[in-house]
């Protein structure tokens, strides 16, 4: 009898198998689908399958006028909708060579930083939930609700704010805005240490996060990741520092770009917690001295961009959002491309995940902070 075959027959036969994570799965936060190849619990391969919420925003933009485009961008990365609006508005203003007043710049920046805070609060909550600590979800949402109320009072909507328009902002800030923002900062400064107390120092949390999903600096650059994911790997990529826009270009605002070098899930977590502190500092520096000025510069009734290519970047909560407008001089863009931070960050997932366990994949996805409509557009 064949000896080899006999050994084979008596041995455990292990097999890799495929499972579908998503499109409906609690950890994918939306309709992201990952085809996982798994050996036991060890991940061998991750293949993202996108398109479940692809709405063709880039195609729709080619048929919409410029003011109409703004509201579509709300629906991309809905957690930093103001940053998206701002990016498009800034790109159009750059093309039209409109210089908006300092008041607009300040308000845009404050609202933008509040958006970042709200996004990070939601992220903190959901990340805790992904790791199994459901309570963090409610604490995160409690604080986010305060910001949403501020938005609702000033912008008219809680999530899809649609606040920046080409040449300014839609409404002036509400008379309660400044006071509410200050109250919020006081409130959140007392609550943010609780976030640390509940999760950051926790030994289980540390064990789940430290050394998980390591992305080296070289890989981070090569994968084009941006935002907190890049900063956790030691890549300086804050657009607010590299290419200052809005109030960052007007005033020299004192804020740090948190840089960690480990590149693991824990440092991505720490970057976002630090960013929340920094955002509060930025708001505090700006909210008291919002200058007077026009809230909207006059534009033509039908906005037509000159021929050419325009590129504008802003720092959203997830990283670098680029808006590429290719105009042929008509009232709609010839081609509009959104460089969404989530899409590039997702491309790094497979590299991080291979060789780790299923539970780690969840932690990785939580700290990548993927928003699926942002990936799919």
């Amino acid at each position, binding site marked *: 009898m064949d000896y080899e075959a006999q050994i084979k027959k008596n041995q455990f036969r292990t097999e890799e198998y495929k499972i579908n994570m998503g499109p409906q799965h*609690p950890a994918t936060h939306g309709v992201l689908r990952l085809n996982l190849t798994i050996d036991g*619990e060890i991940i061998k391969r991750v293949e993202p399958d996108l398109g479940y919420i692809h709405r063709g925003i880039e195609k729709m933009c080619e048929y919409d006028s410029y003011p109409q485009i703004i509201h579509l961008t709300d629906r991309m990365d809905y957690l930093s909708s103001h940053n998206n609006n701002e990016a498009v508005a800034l790109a159009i203003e750059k093309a039209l060579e409109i210089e908006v007043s300092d008041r607009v710049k300040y308000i845009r920046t404050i609202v933008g930083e509040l958006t970042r805070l709200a996004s990070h609060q939601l992220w903190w909550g959901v990340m805790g939930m992904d*790791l*199994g*600590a459901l309570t963090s979800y409610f604490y995160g949402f409690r604080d986010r609700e305060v910001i949403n109320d501020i938005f609702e009072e000033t912008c008219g909507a809680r999530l899809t704010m649609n606040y920046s328009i080409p040449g300014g902002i839609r409404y002036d800030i509400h008379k309660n805005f400044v006071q509410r923002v200050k109250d919020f900062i006081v409130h959140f400064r007392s609550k943010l240490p609780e976030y640390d107390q509940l999760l950051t120092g926790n030994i289980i949390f540390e064990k789940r996060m430290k050394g998980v999903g390591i992305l080296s600096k070289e890989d981070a650059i090569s994968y084009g990741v941006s935002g907190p994911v890049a900063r956790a790997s030691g890549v300086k990529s804050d657009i607010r520092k590299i290419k200052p826009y809005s109030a960052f270009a007007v005033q020299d605002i004192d804020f740090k770009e948190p840089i960690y070098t480990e590149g693991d899930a824990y440092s991505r977590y720490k970057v976002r917690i630090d960013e929340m502190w920094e955002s509060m500092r930025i708001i505090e520096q700006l909210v008291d001295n919002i200058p007077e000025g026009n809230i909207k510069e006059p534009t033509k009734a039908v906005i037509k961009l000159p021929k050419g290519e325009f590129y504008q970047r802003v720092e959203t909560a997830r990283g670098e959002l680029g808006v590429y407008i290719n105009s042929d001089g008509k009232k709609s863009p010839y081609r509009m491309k959104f460089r969404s931070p989530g899409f590039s960050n997702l491309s790094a997932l497979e590299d991080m995940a291979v060789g780790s366990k*299923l*539970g780690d994949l969840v932690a990785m996805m939580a700290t990548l902070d993927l928003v699926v409509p942002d990936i799919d557009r």
Partner: protein
Amino acid sequence: MDNKTYIEQLISFFSNDLGWGIWGDVTGWIVVAVVYLAFFAVTGLYLVLMERKVAGWIQLRHGPNRVGPWGLFQTIGDAIKLVTKELTGTAKADKFLYNLAPYFPIVAALISLSVFAFSKDLQAFDINIGLFFLTAVSSVGVIGILLGGWASNNKFALIGAMRSGVQVISYELSVGLSLLTMVLLTGSLQLSEIIEVQRTGGWLIYQGHIPAIIAFMIYMIAGTAETNRAPFDLIEAESELGAGYHTEYSGMKFAYFFLAEFINMFIIAAIAVTVFFGGWLSPFGITEGIEIEWLQAIFGVFWFVLKVGMIIVLMMFFRWTYPRLRIDQVLTLEWKYLLPLNLMNIVLMAIMVWAGFTLPWPF
């Protein structure tokens, strides 16, 4: 009366007073079983409500408050929903095992209840290997989880089931050893005997001081792991596996798993109370002096349930505070930390008992 438990009295009522003979015995046991079943099904349901309320209060919410006053009928409504719900199943499931699986956890959970002393003379079976019986029976439940995960022919369920097998078998050790530490103090596995030791000498966690406290901590960690609750809920880990082993179960079959989890929680807490906190004994013996027998029995139940409730709230706090561990960390915790500690603790306890360092009861 004399030295007959209430349950024995009930059975002798059927067999002797009514003169039904052997059929009286049978009727008596059936009545006892039905009462236990009904009582603990309701207990399980209200533990669900309690969990939701505790979770709500921790999470800045009200918790269920719509159905009945303070949401008291919420879980009754949920139970009715679960009973009337359609039983779905997968086409390629192993039908026999798939249908059989839910009965293991629930039956194992209910069997273990039969040995608890809820009060003086209120105990269905007072067998002399009580603790051993409890640890043995409570490990039967995992068979149901393994079967269910395997038979439902779902990869997520299979991963969950495999995790549960690994986890429960590991933590069984720690539960057993930490209880064994306490048995060194009592010298008996019989539950009534264990309580009797504490009546005169103080609660065991007091008698055994340091090793007993360590044993209690280990027991709570391992017990939480054995009930498969967060932070050890890897077998259902909803953010990783969807619903884990019961992904493919619905309606009443799911309810069995669900109810078993909560009754198991009760069992773990009840063992802890019996072994560490004096069972149905009142703190400092404040109600033991009461002469009226039925009142004493009621007080016994009251103290028992109160203590169990507090332990359960503690377990609920675990669940709503801590993130979930990863499967390799679960095993690391058991084999690298709990088990060596436990063995050291046993030696410590043995030395202590041998040298007579136990704390005497001053009252």
